[in-house]
């Protein structure tokens, strides 16, 4: 196949409130290629793609699109997402872009509903079409379901189904796997390859190196809002990309750990918790200074389990012991009092208050621990200051609303919020969603540091390599119960996957 350019963007700049998010960047996208876009959190990847699809307007620069009949590039002005869609540009947004109050089918086809008699929406056809689209992404769920009822993974699948339903010429995937697990990710990769074969151009944004190297043909790297380079994937190695991204080489810390775990002290014990009605009950122990990984496929019930421990859902006949004593937890407030924290997987809906400042978000739980209800500004600033630098959150100032941050930086704020609390037990549900590779290792290091200081962590993750790299011990869940336990030493890709599919682990 010849390498025809479909989209070309040049000299693109964009500033938010005077701060440049993009500075004179460029990109060209070709027919039938998978083009990865990489860069640290806040590098400007999402912003550029939003400009391309008409969500944002650029401050300067030019955009060209291939005119299909003339087979040549033409300057275009994408004034709105609608124009973008009409010209064949579609995008899976990093932050969910679904209407929570409407059902799946309505979401996928909003504005494109099949019409029947007298221009009315043909609901039967609509549902039928939705079933078709959902089949493509392997999501077996009634399209009549309201989106607010879906889990993160399911929402992601719906987003993808929606983007694909446009039959677009260019499809942008902005961190699609951040809330998918292995199995769903594999389905997605297959889909992407099929699209490529049909001549569709795919822009793939991800912080996961394996995926990028498995899928992409070319890689464009941004740093700090500037264009660095575009390279052929086969010509480079991971470390090249990383140093392009961060400007220097990264020493990925080898995992240390295990030796700190104090097996003599059980800080948390969960007994007889029924995650789904009828499922085998869950029992496990968490030791002091341990990082306990929870792996499983989407819907395995890890989030549900976390919700029960954290007092969001009712525990039924189950029991929870903290440091040997039985505790009754019927609200997050109780959990926090018992020394338990939770970094939720849904950062937008449950982790952050988007319209509040970065500072206030970081402190909103922490201030509950203070004896005095009068707040001391300076003391607060010290706390936030530490985490902003420890986690390398890139921001204008801490009074900025958190919704203006890039996805990864938002995630860091949620983590900071819970670390600031210094809970004895911290449950982290998909803690590195959307976090760049450099920051990830900083977070791992921070987790380790916290455990050294006495914290115990439960880390729920669908990223196998992360689970394997960080955990001292791994529990695998399948359909609401624990299907395997692996120590750091005995874990392999195979036996972890086997357990995830429900197989007994020998």
């Amino acid at each position, binding site marked *: 196949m010849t390498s025809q350019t479909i989209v070309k963007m040049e000299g693109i700049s964009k500033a938010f409130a005077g701060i440049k998010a993009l500075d004179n960047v460029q990109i060209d996208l070709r027919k039938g290629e998978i083009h990865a876009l990489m860069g640290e959190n806040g590098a400007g990847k999402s912003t550029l793609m939003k400009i391309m699809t008409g969500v944002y307007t650029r401050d300067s620069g030019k955009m060209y699109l291939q005119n299909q009949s003339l087979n040549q590039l033409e300057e275009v002005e994408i004034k709105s*997402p609608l124009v973008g869609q009409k010209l064949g540009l579609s995008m899976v947004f990093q932050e969910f872009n*679904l*209407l929570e109050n409407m059902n799946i089918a*309505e979401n996928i086809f909003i*504005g494109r509903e099949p*019409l029947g008699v007298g*221009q*009315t929406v043909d609901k039967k056809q609509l549902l039928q079409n939705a079933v078709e689209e959902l089949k493509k992404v392997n999501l077996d769920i009634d399209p009549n379901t309201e989106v607010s009822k879906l889990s993160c993974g399911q929402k992601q699948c719906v987003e993808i189904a929606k983007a694909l339903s446009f039959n677009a010429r260019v499809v942008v995937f902005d961190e699609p796997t951040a809330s998918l697990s292995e199995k769903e990710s594999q389905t997605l990769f297959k889909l992407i390859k099929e699209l490529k074969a049909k001549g569709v151009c795919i822009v793939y944004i991800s912080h996961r190196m394996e995926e990028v190297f498995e899928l992409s043909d070319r890689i464009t790297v941004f740093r700090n809002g500037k264009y660095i380079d575009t390279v052929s994937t086969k010509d480079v190695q991971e470390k090249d990309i990383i140093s392009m991204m961060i400007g220097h080489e990264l020493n990925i810390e080898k995992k240390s750990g295990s030796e700190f775990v104090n097996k003599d002290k059980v800080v948390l014990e969960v007994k007889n918790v029924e995650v789904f009605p009828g499922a085998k009950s869950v029992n496990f122990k968490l030791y002091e200074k341990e990082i306990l990984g929870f792996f499983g496929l989407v819907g395995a019930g890890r989030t549900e389990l976390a919700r029960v421990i954290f007092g969001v859902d009712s525990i039924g006949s189950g029991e929870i012991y903290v440091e040997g004593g039985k505790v009754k937890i019927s609200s997050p407030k109780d959990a926090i009092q018992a020394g338990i924290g939770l970094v939720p997987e849904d950062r937008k809906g449950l982790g952050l208050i988007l319209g509040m400042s970065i500072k206030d978000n970081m402190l909103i739980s922490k201030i509950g621990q203070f004896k005095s209800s009068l707040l001391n500004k300076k003391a607060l600033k010290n706390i936030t200051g530490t985490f902003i630098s420890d986690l390398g959150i890139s921001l204008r100032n801490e009074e900025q609303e958190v919704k203006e941050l890039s996805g990864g930086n938002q995630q860091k704020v949620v983590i900071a919020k819970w670390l600031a609390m210094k809970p004895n037990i911290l449950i982290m549900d998909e803690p590195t969603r959307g976090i760049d590779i450099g920051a990830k290792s900083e977070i791992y290091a921070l987790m380790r540091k916290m455990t050294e200081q006495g914290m115990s962590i439960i880390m729920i993750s669908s990223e196998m390599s992360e689970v394997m790299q960080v955990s001292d011990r791994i529990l695998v869940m399948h359909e609401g119960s624990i299907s395997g336990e692996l120590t750091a030493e005995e874990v392999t890709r195979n036996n972890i996957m086997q357990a995830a599919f429900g197989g007994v682990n020998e």
Partner: protein
Amino acid sequence: MKEKKININGLRELLLVGVVLLLCVVWTVMNPQFLSVNNITNILRQASYTAIAAVGMTMIIIIGEIDLSAGSLVCAAGLVGAVVCKNTNNVLLSILAAVLVGALVGLCNGVLCAVGCLPGFIATLASMTILRGLAYIITGGNSIVWSNDNFTKIGTGYMGPVPIPVIIMIVAIIFGVMLTTKFRFGRYIYAVGGNMETSRWSGIPVVKVKILVYVIMGVLTSIAGLIVTTRLGSGQPSAGLNFEMDCITASVVGGTSMSGGRGKVMGTIVGVLLLTVLTNGMTLVGMNTYWQQVLKGVIIVVSVLADTRGKAK
């Protein structure tokens, strides 16, 4: 659990219909007159103008906005109708003029809100004040009377045994139900109210949708205004005071969420009926006005409470 989510699957309407029926039984037992054809006609006629504007209000609230100017517009549109009828004696022209004013006011509200980015509360509060002020200035506090009996029929006439306002109401309800459930525009309304940003990103012409909803509201309100005015028998600068509150209350009681994105025209209609049946019945059994107010407050709380409680797991 602690969510203020209002069920959209008809449960609330059913429950409310239950409350309405219960009320009907109680009233009938206390005064059999309640079930007379006369009184039913009476109730429906009294419900009609609120229902018509409440159809629009429901859409307004679904898109996450509010319209405080409805009462003043009822007054203004009615006055315009009355003035035109007085001067031209042409019923059609009078109706057109009133509706045009309604559409224009709706357009202003919509543009201020969608293009000017004003909160709907502010934009319509301003129109409310301005329209009411103008009504008094222009009439000097006097009422406007006309002499064309056909114009009067809008609010007082019958088509066979059915009052004309009731027929207009039915048309408005059908229009509202169809628009919100059967047409693409209906999907847009829920989308915009559910999440404006997302809607924009999904290619929905958010500005147009908002403006159009306000225009629809304006038109429906002006029709309500024609009914009110012709029912009263004269154009009154004080007509429609607090009318918007009735519409909003009916919508919310009927399950529309003030935070947008959720609600049903049929729920609102049941809400209007509940309020009308309540007032009518209380009067029929001879209850004092101020006890009526107390009871009304209690029943509103109980009926909405029963519903939210029923759903809280």
